[in-house]
């Protein structure tokens, strides 16, 4: 089949699956729904593999808006970047589908879960394939919806319902900025929204390039607007607060959405529009700064977390910071490379965490685990491989991608380089802490001592992912992937960067091992990190004052002034006038007589004095 229909299939099959599950859920059982979903994931994966080496092509699937002045299609671009991302999304998606068959086997609402997973696959595919900003925005929001459905899967839990709402709202704030960016570009380029047309409008050689002549502040506004969308979706500071809470969702969801794909969409989008971002020096600096800061900030918070999923969540935040920083430093390809490798080992870590949680009977606190190295060897092995990849041990995939980014930082901005190096040290430290506390030593609770290995359907994806975690950084293995990742230039100082990064890994791991081996409770007690720098409390306060308080104030003012002035004041005046007029109808004869007399005098005066003069 030709590429157009292949792409249409990848995009629409999961939607069809989700819709059929929605409609048929009451009539057929869980088994049929799960099969539909997993089958669609598998078919999409196979198709995306076929499309990996294909020629770049664009096309249109559906005309969405077609009015004089705006013409937006649901189309697609199939190029290096999107084909590679497609592979990642469908591959990890398929693994998570399979894993969930085991992990969610006792859940009551499995059909709803798999339907939401299919919905997510549809939305994410749309972002990857988007050939214009509006289509990307459409699927951006749909991904937000899927995330809402999946985080809030166990909606009877108040904390899950709150987390889903928080995720959607935080993303919405990011979307606000994203839309402003899109509108700015549309206005400045005289009505273009597709990437190709915008590139054309920006290039110096084209005859009519309104974007090329646009003032600097316009490009900065556009760049920052688009970046704000990424800040929301990829959970950068200050919109990072939803990601840790999103761990309320089932672990496969965290693996798929909050590690590998959805949060990576922000980085993917930034790389797609990097030709616009580079036009604004200021925007690039801000992007790099926020990325670097997020990386450091999240790593600090991760040092004191005790929930295994939260540790991984903050680790994701930190790695996303690296990717965003890379884009800001002009090394977008390095960011994408790290995105790919991170997708593999982070998904591995989350699924491994899921296996650990499953093994310990849904216990998530690492201080209630221990000694799992012997109880669950396969999980330990794969988790360790994932950890080493994340830390960036030389030889693992994470090493190559992280080194690229550190190299770019060293090349461009010295203090970001040192901050990233320190972050790498912290990463190494807290991951070692996690592994040592959870897997080494003796079991600390009953559940931990009776832990058993997860079923094969959950372990197989782990094993598969660990192969990728090790090897996806190499040229020969990821011959296909590497074709998507143009290798960034190695400047001089390459050895220095390598040395620093290896040192960071070793020092961090050593510190971690030294501090935590054989301990039963945390020797460090940094409340600031453990309480996430109190940002949630600060935000809650801000919301309470500036939203709820403001709403209360505005309601009161509106009631007094607007409703009062426009509605109640005229009504009161009318009543007062009415009452006064009523007083004249007193019913008393003498009053009427008196008025009669006065009127008579007035009439005589008028007739005799006023009228003759005119």
């Amino acid at each position, binding site marked *: 089949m030709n590429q157009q229909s292949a792409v249409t299939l990848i995009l629409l099959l999961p939607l069809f699956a989700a819709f059929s599950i*929605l409609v048929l859920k009451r009539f057929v059982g869980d088994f049929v729904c799960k099969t539909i979903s997993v089958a669609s994931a598998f078919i999409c994966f196979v198709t995306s593999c076929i499309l990996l080496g294909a020629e770049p092509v664009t096309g249109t699937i*559906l*005309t*969405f*808006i*077609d*009015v*004089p*002045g*705006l013409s937006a299609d649901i189309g697609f671009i199939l190029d290096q970047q999107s084909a590679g991302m497609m592979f990642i999304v469908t591959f990890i998606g398929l693994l998570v589908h399979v894993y969930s068959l085991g992990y969610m086997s006792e859940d009551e609402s499995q059909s709803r879960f798999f339907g939401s997973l299919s919905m997510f696959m549809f939305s994410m595919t749309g972002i990857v394939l988007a050939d214009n900003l*509006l289509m990307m*925005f*459409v*699927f951006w*929001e*749909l991904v937000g*919806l899927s995330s809402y459905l999946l985080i*809030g899967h166990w*909606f*009877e*839990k*108040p904390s*899950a*319902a*709150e987390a*889903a*709402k928080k995720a*959607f*709202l935080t993303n*919405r*704030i990011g*979307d*606000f900025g994203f*839309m*402003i960016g899109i*509108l*700015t570009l*549309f*206005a*400045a380029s005289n*009505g273009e929204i597709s990437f190709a047309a915008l590139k054309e409008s920006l290039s110096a050689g084209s005859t009519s390039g309104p974007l090329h002549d*646009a*003032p600097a502040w*316009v490009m900065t506004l556009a760049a920052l607007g688009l970046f704000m969308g990424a800040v929301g979706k990829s959970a950068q500071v200050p919109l990072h607060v939803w990601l840790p809470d999103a761990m309320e969702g089932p672990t496969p969801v965290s693996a798929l959405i909050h590690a590998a794909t959805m949060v990576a969409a922000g980085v993917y989008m930034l790389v797609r529009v990097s030709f616009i971002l580079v036009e604004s020096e200021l925007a690039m600096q801000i992007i790099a700064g926020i990325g670097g800061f997020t990386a450091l900030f999240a790593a600090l918070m991760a040092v004191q977390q005790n929930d295994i999923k939260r540790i991984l969540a903050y680790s994701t935040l930190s790695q996303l910071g690296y990717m965003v920083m890379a884009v800001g430093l002009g090394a977008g390809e390095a960011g994408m490379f790290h995105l790919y490798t991170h997708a593999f080992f982070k998904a591995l870590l989350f699924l491994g965490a899921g296996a650990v949680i499953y093994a310990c009977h849904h216990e998530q606190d690492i201080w209630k685990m221990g000694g799992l190295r012997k109880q669950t060897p396969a999980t330990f092995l794969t988790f360790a491989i994932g950890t080493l990849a994340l830390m960036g041990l030389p030889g693992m995939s994470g090493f190559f991608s992280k080194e690229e980014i550190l190299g770019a930082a060293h090349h461009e901005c010295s203090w970001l380089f040192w901050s990233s190096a320190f972050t790498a040290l912290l990463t190494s430290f807290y991951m070692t802490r996690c592994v040592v506390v959870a897997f080494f030593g003796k079991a600390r609770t009953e559940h931990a001592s009776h832990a058993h290995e997860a079923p094969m359907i959950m372990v197989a994806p782990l094993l598969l992912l660990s192969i990728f975690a090790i090897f996806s950084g190499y040229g020969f293995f990821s011959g296909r992937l590497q074709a998507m990742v143009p290798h960034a230039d190695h400047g001089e100082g390459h050895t220095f960067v390598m040395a620093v990064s290896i040192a960071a890994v070793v020092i961090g791991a050593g510190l971690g091992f030294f501090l935590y081996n054989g301990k039963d409770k945390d020797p460090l007690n940094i409340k600031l990190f453990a309480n996430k720098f109190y940002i949630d409390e600060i935000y809650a306060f801000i919301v309470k004052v500036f*939203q*709820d308080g*403001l*709403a*209360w104030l*505005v*309601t009161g003012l*509106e009631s007094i002034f*607007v*409703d009062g*002035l*426009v*509605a109640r004041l005229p*009504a009161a005046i009318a009543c007062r006038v009415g009452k006064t007029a009523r007083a004249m109808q007193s019913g008393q004869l003498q009053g009427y007589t008196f008025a009669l007399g006065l009127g008579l005098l007035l009439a005589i005066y008028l007739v005799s004095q006023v009228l003759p003069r005119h």
Partner: protein
Amino acid sequence: MSLLEIIILIPLLAAALIGAGLPAKLISRGAALLNLVVLLVVLSQHAAGVNLAHSVRILDNPSISFAVGADGLSLTLALLTCLVLLAAVWQIIDKPAIYHVASLLIAGGALGAFLSTDLFFIYGFHELALIPTLLMIAVHGHGDATNRRAIAWKITVYLGAGSLVLLAGLAALVLNFSGSNGLTFDLNALMETAKTAPLAADTQAWLFFVLLVGFGTLVSLFPFHSWAAPAYAAAPTPVAMLHSGVLKKFGLYGLIKIALPLLPLGAKAEWVQQALLIMLVGNIIVIGLVTIHQNRLDTMLGNSSVMHMGYIFLGIAAGSPVALNGAVLLMFAHGISIALAFALCGKMRNQLGTLEFSKLGGLAANAPFLTVMFAFATFSSIGLPGLANFAGEVMVFVGAFNLNLNAGLKPIHWATILALWGVVISAVYMLRAYRSLFFGKAAEGHFISDPVGSQRLPLLLLTAVLLVVGCRPTLITDLLTFAAK
């Protein structure tokens, strides 16, 4: 006898039949279905290019005729009316026949207003549709008797005052644009004269402002909005669905169909634009904040309905073809989604007795169908792509922002940015409502069960329309013919 006249007369005739004593449920559902079918026939004829205009002369001097004519805008809103009417009458169960009569009269009046091309009848039909609304709120509204009488009085006087201002504006239009053959109320004739002999820009600006205030009061434009929220909270469900979904759009329809073509310079005048921008930002931000403060579902939905009008006014303020297309699409989409929301609200009120967020919770456990339906209403209202409101909102924003940026950000740009923040505000209150009502732990003693059998149909109908138009907005925008100037 044109098909359009038949569409207007079917609901009125059905109301009369029910009044005469025939079975209410059967007649009203049959009439609504028949109306929808005839309208679909009209749509296909319109697409094929058949001219459906027809007029019957009533008076010679001034020239008033019962004239009907269809263009894309009228047909879009007529389609909205038929769909909402069908859903509204279908979901009436165990209520006196007057509910059916009132719904049919409101819909008949609305259809008359949308399909007429004579100013006299446009105005007259709208007033006809308002009367049952006011009476139903007074007699059959929710809440205790003194409260609902007070609310009914407020809305009557308020909308009466607005209609009066509107009448003054329309009279001025008739006087100025009647041409040389004596006074005429025919809209097409007025437009001809306006093209050949337009008024001075200043006069146009004033006249447009008067019409804006008149039509705007009918649409709850800030600051003339305070009748809306209490009225919708107190109104019986089919009346709320029809008024907020359909009748409210009359003012916007009038602005786009009557005011903008006859007074093109008026809308563009500097001070009119600024006033309009301030008012619509007031709708979105001020009323948005008021909506956040509400703690009951019915008042929240009423205020949110007021808030969403701000986006449509932004489209009108922008005036470009993209923006107007978006405004009309948003009118249609908002009508359907708010009707769905009020239908669900009515079902919940019937079963629960209270709609306060603090008293309810965890309703999803026993009512999966209603949960899904409410999700559709919620996400449509906050502008999720795939549901109808999104395309309209995007077109409005794009049309409004699309002004040369080289000179810096103009007021309309700032207004668009503030209006964009409205999508965050609407997400805040709708999601908070959804979470408070349906998620979390079940509240003591309050639970609902799903509607059964044919009662699911009106909700499914509205949801299906939202999905279809959401995925394919061209279905509606292809009807409209706003050309670039």
